[in-house]
């Protein structure tokens, strides 16, 4: 558990592909669609990537706020669908956005918990002396899906988000993070470059039961610890912005934690599960109501989890743009 001082979330932007897919119910999938709560998703074309979406979101912040590329001291790209096996996508983004060569740039391989982990990592850099951090979280999981797998093919959408964290006195965030790698196989994509006797395929596979049980075991405890560590009660939090895993899971978690579902902003109905982008995307989707202290929680692939409590009262939240 960490409280990091002099950190402010300056701005948040989100970009989704223009291309949409509606989930049409039939005899084979109607129960799945009802449970996951996804009505439509935005998915990339073959010539679009998570990097493209994140760059568009970052450029939107530069266009609409007082901060520019030259103000950025570090770029963190959180994704499980990077541009290349190597180099790090953050290096390419530094060049495309025209950010200084004196910048720190690296990738982080995390998904569902990627945004909240990223906020923690960016805050640490601010404590090290960097003034402004560009945190990019985006995934194009639709490219990794087996279209015959109902448990994933109806669930995932694509998005890229940009968040700028700045140094600011009397502003702080608190973070709680954790991992249980024994469950690493619950959400997985094989890697043909790793030590394997047999390479299966390149599709994402997910054991929904294992993921759900893990979530119910860990997340209510995470929320309790997060509030306790910050000396806050549930009522002190304006909104609980959770990773948009699926609608049934969100409702079950709200019930388990004992929080009115009204305080859980939802974007999964319009955008699906967008992995590392889902929390900032939801904030942008619900920008008209998001204010005050917000508890953000990410959980899933790893299996890993993290939460961040931050005051978004002075955060510039932008409208979602399409690419």
């Amino acid at each position, binding site marked *: 558990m960490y409280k990091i001082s002099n950190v402010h979330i300056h701005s948040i932007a989100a970009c989704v592909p223009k291309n949409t897919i509606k989930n049409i119910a039939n005899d084979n999938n109607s129960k799945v669609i009802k*449970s996951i709560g996804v009505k439509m998703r935005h998915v990339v074309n073959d010539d679009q990537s998570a990097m493209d979406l994140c760059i568009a979101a970052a450029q939107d912040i530069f266009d609409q706020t007082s901060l520019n590329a030259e103000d950025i001291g570090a770029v963190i790209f959180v994704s499980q669908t990077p541009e290349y096996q190597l180099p790090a996508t953050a290096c390419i983004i530094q060049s495309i956005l025209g950010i200084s060569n004196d910048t720190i740039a690296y990738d982080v391989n995390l998904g569902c918990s990627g945004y909240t982990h990223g906020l923690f990592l960016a805050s640490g850099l601010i404590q090290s002396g960097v003034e402004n951090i560009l945190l990019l979280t985006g995934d194009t999981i639709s490219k990794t899906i087996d279209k015959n797998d109902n*448990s994933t093919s109806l669930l995932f959408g694509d998005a890229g988000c940009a968040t700028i964290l700045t140094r600011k006195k009397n502003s702080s965030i608190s973070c709680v993070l954790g991992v249980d790698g024994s469950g690493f196989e619950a959400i997985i994509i094989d890697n043909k470059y790793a030590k394997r006797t047999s390479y299966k395929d390149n599709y994402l596979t997910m054991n*929904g*039961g294992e993921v*759900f*049980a893990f979530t*119910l075991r860990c997340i209510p405890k995470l929320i309790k610890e997060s509030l306790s560590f910050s000396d806050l009660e549930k009522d002190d939090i304006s909104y609980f912005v959770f990773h948009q895993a699926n609608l*049934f899971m969100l409702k*079950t978690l709200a019930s*388990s934690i004992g929080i009115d579902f009204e305080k859980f902003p939802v974007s999964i109905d319009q955008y699906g599960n967008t992995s590392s982008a889902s929390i900032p995307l939801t904030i942008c989707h619900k920008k008209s109501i998001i204010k005050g202290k917000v508890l953000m929680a990410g959980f899933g692939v790893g299996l890993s989890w993290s939460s961040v409590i931050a005051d978004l009262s002075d955060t510039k939240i932008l409208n979602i743009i399409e690419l």
Partner: protein
Amino acid sequence: MNENQILDVIAETLEMDSIEITMDLDERIWDSLAVVVFIGSVSNAFNKILDPSELYDVKNVQQLVQLVIDS
């Protein structure tokens, strides 16, 4: 928590009006989605988190009821 309460949760999970303890659960009705929904429903109703690996192997309602009781 008694057997009837557990049967109610199973019926709700399978979207059936009622359910018999003797009923078999084949893969047409007891699929991965039913497992996920049942884990959530049991958590809400009885504050218990079931082991999914055991749930996937269940063959009938009797086994399911016993799993919930033993958990």
